[in-house]
């Protein structure tokens, strides 16, 4: 074909057309176009990088942080609750929460071609957790997109390890702690309890939750894709929860609970409470209520059982409050301690209403008035001074105010701040009606009496330093009162059953009707408050039995024996020597009998 002989540089077939043997040349514009395209591409890459790295940097960094930064929390154990002697009232024990990941479960069962319902391991799991199989299956299959569902919480270690050995894909465990209350119902009201997330929701557990919880530690770390830690960004050291030492003496608490429970049971009462206060420090040594509940298993407990009645419930106290009017009269000086007051004929009219005694006691001194709990006598005392003075005495002894305890649900009672008080109202006030008080308020009043008239705030925590008190009534008055009230427990007093062999005890009974619908019904509150030993008062005890349903309802009958038991045992446990010399031997005999 080719007639032109190709020479040196041209290729063999290159010269088909007569274009000469010219080597291929470059068109400048084509070359420049390619070159600028390449430049443009590189600029584009640079621009894209700039967009990602400068404009979009924050957003991308945030997304990366979302994937790489993890915050691990390090739970700390909740502090214990101890009694004053170090006995555990509430402790935390390690348990497991068992949870499931429905998404993983769905995937695994699909892979194994074995529906959850037919998997023997799932059946075993349901059985060991005491959940019905259907319920369990439903929970893990209902929403397969979910990634977390609790199966059971607070599972004991033994059971948890069984579950672990089932090796069910998608079933996991998480450490948590369970609160355990070794003393059960004895201290249930006082100590309270926590919820599943270890937060206190009642009693001391709630009141001092913050201290006991501590601060969970946290580590903000960056991890690699295998979950290994590569950088610690932030670290908060965990602060262990503090243990709390209460003023409670668990031995006294136990005795008190037992006594109140037996009183409530024997007299078929609605409820009962007892409070024991250390007179010299204001520390509460025991605070019990019946009926109680088992804080370790609260399922199915009626809600009224949860009430810490000693601080929440108020009632018209009745005669147990009579010492107040006596104190008032003594302090004012309208009567002397030995002055005789005529209570004949056993009743009197005040402001058109009748005040009466159970019988005609004739002439009584103050001691006699208290001993026999004479309404007429006390009315005469109450009306012998300006009403302000009487009311102030009530205030000074803590009625209508708070006790310093600050427990959950504590009431400060009802003490109307009225302008006008009729004579009859003042009279009823003097024998304990027309105001409502709590058991702890009464206990504080008696503690003040025992403490030479110095009112200390009550406390539930063990005190290391003495608390500053306030002199509310003179030491002389309080001492006089103590001696007078000793007679209540003597042979012809109203509170014989509260007597403690071997000890000199002062006290006062109280029997009041419960107000219903604007009047008073046939339900009573029997109470007894006392101080012992008289020679050197150490503890004040108040026992209250609400609505005894049997034939007995007087304070002496229903609360007296419980008081005696609590007072006697407490004095003994606190190693307080008996101060009643003449009874010494019999006391030992009696005590020996009790200890059996």
């Amino acid at each position: 074909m080719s007639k032109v002989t190709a020479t040196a540089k041209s290729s063999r077939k290159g010269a088909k057309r007569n274009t000469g043997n010219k080597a291929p040349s470059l068109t400048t514009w084509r070359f420049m176009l390619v070159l600028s395209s390449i430049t443009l591409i590189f600029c584009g890459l640079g621009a894209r990088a700039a967009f990602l790295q400068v404009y979009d940097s924050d957003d991308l960094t945030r997304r990366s942080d979302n994937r790489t930064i993890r915050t691990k929390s390090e739970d700390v154990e909740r502090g214990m609750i101890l009694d004053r002697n170090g006995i555990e009232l509430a402790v935390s024990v390690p348990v497991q929460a068992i949870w499931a990941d429905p998404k993983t479960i769905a995937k695994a069962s699909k892979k194994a071609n074995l529906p959850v319902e037919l998997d023997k391991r799932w059946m075993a799991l349901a059985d060991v957790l005491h959940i019905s199989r259907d319920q369990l299956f439903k929970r893990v299959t209902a929403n397969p997109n979910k990634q977390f569902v609790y199966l059971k919480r607070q599972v004991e270690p033994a059971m948890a390890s069984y579950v672990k050995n089932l090796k069910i894909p998608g079933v996991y465990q998480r450490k948590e702690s369970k609160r355990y209350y070794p003393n059960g119902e004895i201290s249930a009201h006082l100590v309270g309890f926590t919820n599943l997330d270890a937060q206190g929701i009642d009693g001391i557990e709630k009141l001092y939750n913050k201290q006991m919880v501590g601060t969970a530690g946290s580590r903000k770390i960056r991890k690699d894709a295998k979950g290994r830690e590569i950088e610690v960004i932030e670290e908060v050291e965990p602060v262990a929860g503090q243990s709390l030492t209460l003023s409670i003496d668990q031995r006294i608490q136990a005795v008190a609970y037992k006594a109140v429970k037996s009183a409530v049971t024997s007299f078929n009462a609605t409820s009962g409470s007892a409070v024991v206060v250390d007179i010299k420090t204001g520390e509460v040594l025991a605070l019990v209520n019946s009926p109680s509940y088992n804080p370790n298993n609260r399922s199915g407990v009626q809600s009224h059982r949860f009430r810490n009645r000693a601080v929440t419930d108020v009632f018209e106290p009745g005669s147990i409050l009579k010492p107040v009017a006596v104190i008032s009269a003594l302090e004012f000086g309208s009567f002397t301690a030995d002055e005789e007051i005529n209570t004949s004929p056993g009743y009197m009219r005040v402001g058109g209403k009748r005040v009466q005694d159970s019988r005609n006691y004739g002439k009584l001194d103050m001691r006699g008035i208290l001993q026999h709990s004479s309404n007429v006598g006390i009315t005469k005392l109450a009306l012998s001074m300006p009403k302000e003075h009487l009311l102030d005495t009530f205030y000074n002894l803590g009625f209508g105010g708070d006790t310093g305890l600050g427990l959950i649900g504590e009431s400060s009672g009802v003490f109307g701040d009225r302008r006008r008080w009729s004579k009859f109202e003042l009279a009823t006030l003097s024998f304990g009606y027309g105001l409502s008080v709590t058991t702890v308020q009464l206990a504080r009043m008696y503690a003040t009496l025992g403490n030479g008239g110095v009112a200390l705030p009550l406390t539930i925590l063990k005190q290391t330093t003495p608390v500053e008190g306030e002199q509310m009534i003179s030491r002389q008055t309080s001492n006089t009162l103590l001696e007078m009230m000793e007679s209540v427990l003597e042979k012809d007093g109203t509170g014989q059953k509260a007597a403690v062999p071997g000890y000199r005890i002062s006290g006062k009974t109280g029997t009041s009707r419960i107000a219903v619908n604007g009047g008073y019904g046939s339900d009573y509150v029997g109470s007894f408050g006392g101080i012992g030993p008289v020679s050197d008062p150490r503890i004040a005890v108040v026992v209250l039995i609400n609505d005894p349903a049997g034939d007995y309802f007087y304070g002496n009958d229903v609360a007296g024996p419980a008081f005696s038991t609590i007072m006697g045992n407490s004095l003994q446990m606190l190693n307080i020597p008996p101060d009643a010399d003449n009874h010494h031997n019999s006391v030992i005999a009696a005590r020996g009998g009790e200890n059996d």
Partner: protein
Amino acid sequence: MSEVVIDDDLINDLIDDELRDERLPGEEIQIDEPDVDEAGLDEQTKPKAKVSKRKPKVKKADKPEAGEATDAHKQTSFDFGAFLTDTLGWKPAPTAVFDRVLVLTVFMLVAFGFVMISSASMPVAERINGNQYHFIIRHGIYICLALIAAIVTLQLPMDKWQKYNGVLLGLSIALLVIVLIVGKTVNGATRWIVVGPITIQAAEPAKLFFFAYLASYLVRKHDEVQEHFKGFVKPLLVFFVAAILLLNQPDLGTVVVMFITTLSLLFLAGAKLWQFFGLIITGMASLVTLIIIEPYRMARVTSFMDPWQDPFGKGYQLTQSLMAYGRGDMFGQGLGNSVQKLEYLPEAHTDFVMAVLAEELGLMGVLSILTLLLIVVFKAMLIGKKALEQGKAFEGFFAMAIGVWFSFQTMVNVGASAGILPTKGLTFPLVSYGGSSLIIMFIAVSVLLRIDHEIRMTTTHTTRRGAL
């Protein structure tokens, strides 16, 4: 001035060489030697001059020098001191026998790459091998092998490339066929031929050889290319054969790079514009078809368009890569401080080495490495232009092919990691980990140097002749 003497000697040899073109291969070796040695020395001296920061290279360089010294030094009385100054560019050296800037840039890229691979590969290496230096050692070995390959290539006159272009094309196609038959399959892609301890990624030499063929074709049929549709279509048919083989691996990335390079070369060679546009349209259409019929490609396309739609599934790699870019900010987290390389980015040392670089060195690092590569590409294009101007058409087209190839491979690699192109397993030229790629890239750079060297020799030769 001593250089002038050297050059004269060399030129004479070169001329001889040219004249004795048709000699038997056995005879050639001796005659080529001085020239070859010169080129080899350039290559060797470079790392020396650049100082010992790259140990393997210095070692490498010492050996051949010692071996060849006897012959070469006798003949040329080589002035080493002058050569050093020459390399470092302390004084202008218009008579330099090679492109210093190109060599320097290439070594900077390789050094850059070595450091980044060291940083990026350690976590992966530790996971796979328990030896965190696994990939670093290998990359060092690859660099040594690549240098040897480069030295050998430098000794090869361009005529040989042109002469054996048919053989090269055959080799290229053969490699692509062999890989489909006996290749090793990794992650669903059959891309590697295993010969004893050596694993070759077939597509890498195939690319280079195909471009050699293409350059030669454009010279041989350059009239036909410009005048006839036939001339335009023929190389494309060859390309389609290669493309079909590549797609069977599958390796769409290489196909795209080859396609664009072929197109660019046809364009530069003066193909008619209408043909060109027609081809672009059909090319695009077939690309789209490929993507549509192969669902995994579709998935890649959709995932790259909005990786955040499925950041833990299809978009996983890309989102991790984008986050690496984002964390880099302007100046980076600092060398070695990448978080994304810690098992988040699955191919931190290969496909996504740029992402790690972006995270550790920031936008500045990215722009630096892009600039370095752009310099290499420009050098290639300008060497090509100079060659064409001197009538060395094959050399010119080959150099340009290398330039376009490098730039588009860079585009695909960086574009994929930056989320503007679908993810493809292409390396960043001279930087990414991978023996085959590194060796072939070094050979390509050597070809550029050789072409440049031959141009310089011709230029000096003519001027000297003129002067004489």
